[in-house]
């Protein structure tokens, strides 16, 4: 066969070369490459012009590739559609086929380029597949022409340089190409093997975590069952749809929001809250927020633009996607909600890989403005905006209006209860005077509130006031102020609402969750500190909706407290605007449950 083509080349010259290379590129079982090596060798003996050969070889290959592409487009696409309808893929599952088609669409450019000069044997099938998958022709042509430039240059060049031994030189290139291919395949298999082994181990951990979370849900459900049932046997398990809420343990507000959603939806669904990220993330965040606060601020600011947010999310998705996939496979949720921007994109990518996609909901967390990383993924099924400001920002960032809902910011049940009656009792139990102006000061569980300076500044004011200091798990802070007069130190407690409700003013870091809990308890909020960048828009939000005051300097805080102690009207005025906002938020929250029901149906 080769002798026939080489003879044809010798006999008919350039036209023969053009036709044979074109047919080979179109997918015919002919080695057009071999002919180019031979032509290069003949050119070395002045039997052909090397420049003309290059032009002929290049144009023929591009034309042949184009022909195969159009054949694939004309006949391949309907054939694939027909096979998909008939589902006659007996040797391979339809889902696997779909995944490989999706994979091809993503990697088509490289596949086209490489198969022109490196894995030449795949050139024909890839041309056909690109056409069948309706890969844009302009893009196909660009990658094809780039690849064929090398595809013509390499064999012609090698043939020309090693003229008398071109066939042996071709064998060397072929052998090295086979070696590279085998090496690449081994590398891919090695990576797959390592990943699968790691996934196998990780799967056991995830299973244990999911089991634990499911047991918790079942226990909560059992505790809610009416006690009148005489049947002492184990209650029959009623299959309820499972909702998976993905969070990140970097910051407490996201978890609070997830818990609020869980309480809201828990009566009708099994709601599991899971953090798909490595515990390393949580430990790093805690360390940074306590010791290197500016780093968090820089990270927030530097990634708060489209390009950096896209890069950040893709890096995180690369690390977390497999983990999230496994988690979803294990939980088998009917709906996924995410309350943290940094797991949102990985969740969307993992969801894409599933055999059956699950509805995905993004619950935005902040009040005044969102970080751009929330908007990298624009194809979730629903986006829940907690405020009008966030709703407007999401719309501006291109979130489809039909997927965007203004639902307010839900809070945990304890913050919705009327606790006014228990105020005096709570303060007495804490050893404080119910008649005195009381400040609830948040210590910040992660220690980022810079609370010591604030507390000491408040105590220095020459007016009667007392402080409930929520120290969380910060033992150092608790120990430092444990024996101070007019200060009651509150260790970590899950039921924080009664203590906040017992105060007249809630003070602390301007976190979205904390501000919401304050206005839901109808208490004015005093913002004394913030994570710059991330929480800066919350300050404007507080002032705009008259939910409290912003006093970041100690002197400003002292002046305000002095005024509040002397004029109770100031507090009353603030409470009336807070009530109005609370009423709006409560009403907006009513939209969440019907929306979830609709998504699940």
């Amino acid at each position, binding site marked *: 066969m080769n*002798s026939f083509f*080489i*003879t044809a080349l*010798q*006999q008919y*010259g350039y036209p023969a070369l053009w036709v044979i290379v074109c047919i080979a590129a179109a997918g015919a079982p002919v080695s057009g490459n071999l002919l180019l090596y*031979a032509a290069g*060798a*003949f050119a070395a*003996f*002045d*039997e052909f012009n090397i420049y003309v050969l290059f032009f002929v070889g290049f144009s023929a290959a591009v034309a042949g590739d184009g022909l195969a592409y159009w054949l694939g487009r004309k006949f391949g696409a309907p054939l694939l559609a027909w096979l998909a309808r008939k589902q006659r893929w007996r040797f391979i599952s339809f889902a696997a086929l779909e995944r490989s088609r999706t994979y091809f669409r993503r990697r088509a450019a490289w596949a086209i380029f490489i198969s022109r000069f490196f894995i030449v044997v795949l050139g024909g099938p890839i041309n056909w597949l690109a056409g069948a998958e309706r890969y844009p022709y302009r893009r196909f042509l660009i990658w094809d022409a780039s690849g064929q430039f090398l595809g013509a240059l390499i064999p012609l060049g090698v043939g020309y340089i*090693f003229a*008398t*031994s071109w*066939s*042996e*030189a071709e*064998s*060397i290139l*072929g*052998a*090295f190409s*086979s*070696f590279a*291919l*085998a*090496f690449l*395949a*081994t590398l891919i*298999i*090695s990576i*797959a*093997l390592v990943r*699968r*082994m790691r996934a*196998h181990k990780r*799967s056991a951990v995830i299973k244990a975590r999911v089991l634990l979370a499911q047991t918790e849900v079942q226990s909560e459900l059992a505790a809610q069952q009416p006690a009148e049932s005489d049947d002492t046997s184990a209650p029959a398990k009623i299959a309820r749809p499972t909702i998976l809420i993905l969070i990140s343990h970097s910051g407490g507000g996201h978890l609070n929001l997830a818990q609020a959603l869980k309480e809201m939806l828990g009566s009708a669904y099994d709601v599991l809250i899971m953090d798909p990220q490595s515990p390393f993330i949580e430990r790093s965040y805690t360390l940074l927020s306590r010791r290197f606060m500016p780093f968090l601020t820089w990270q927030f600011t530097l990634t708060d633009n489209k390009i950096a947010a896209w890069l950040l999310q893709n890096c995180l998705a690369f690390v977390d996607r497999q983990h999230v996939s496994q988690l979803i496979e294990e939980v088998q949720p009917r709906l996924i909600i995410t309350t943290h921007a940094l797991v949102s994109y990985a969740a969307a990518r993992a969801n894409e890989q599933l055999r059956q996609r699950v509805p995905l909901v993004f619950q935005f967390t902040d009040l005044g403005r969102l970080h751009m990383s929330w908007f990298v993924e624009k194809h979730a099924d629903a986006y829940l905006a907690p405020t009008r400001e966030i709703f407007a920002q999401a719309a501006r960032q291109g979130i489809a209006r039909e997927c965007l809902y203004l639902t307010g910011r839900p809070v945990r049940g304890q913050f919705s209860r009327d606790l006014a009656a228990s105020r005096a009792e709570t303060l007495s139990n804490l050893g404080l005077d119910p008649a005195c102006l009381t400040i609830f000061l948040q210590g910040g569980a992660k220690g980022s509130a810079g609370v010591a300076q604030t507390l000491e500044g408040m105590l220095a004011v020459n007016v009667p006031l007392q402080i409930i200091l929520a120290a969380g798990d910060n033992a150092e802070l608790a120990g430092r102020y444990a024996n101070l007069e007019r200060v009651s130190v509150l260790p970590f407690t899950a039921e924080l609402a009664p203590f906040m409700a017992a105060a007249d003013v809630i003070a602390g870091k301007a976190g979205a969750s904390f501000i919401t809990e304050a206005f839901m308890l109808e208490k004015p909020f005093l913002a004394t500190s913030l994570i710059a960048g991330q929480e800066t828009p919350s300050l404007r939000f507080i002032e705009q909706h008259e939910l409290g005051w912003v006093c970041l300097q100690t002197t400003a805080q002292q002046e305000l407290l002095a005024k509040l102690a002397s004029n109770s009207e100031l507090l009353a005025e603030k409470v009336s605007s807070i009530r109005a906002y609370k009423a709006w938020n409560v009403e907006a929250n009513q939209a969440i449950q019907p929306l979830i029901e609709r998504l699940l149906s």
Partner: protein
Amino acid sequence: MSERVKLIFLYVLWLLALAIVALSAANALQTVKDFQQENTATKAGDVNTIRPWMTIHVISHVYHVPEDYLNNSLHIVMQSSDRAHGATLYQLASRQHMSLDRFVETVKQVIRAYRKEHISSSLSSPPPLFAVLLSGETKE
């Protein structure tokens, strides 16, 4: 298919891939050696490196034998369909109704004869093809 079976399958595949890598590496090294030998032999003018794709023009250049001498010895007549530098040995063998191997062997004999003649510096005209074949000089 259970996860364990998938892992075992992948492990076997990995071993197989490693074996293929080793084999292809050995093959690549062998082709390099073959190439070196072939190249050295061609440069030394070894007639065993003559290949069927070569034309008389190419053979003349590589083995330093005048093109006319080769054409005359092999009784090659240019045809109208031939390009400027003639036909390949495939084509020539076919025209002379000879097997390719036999024709290539004949070419080798002609080259050897030319070299012999020029070492002994005697003959002015090349011997005809069949004279070469019948003269018993087919073996060196």
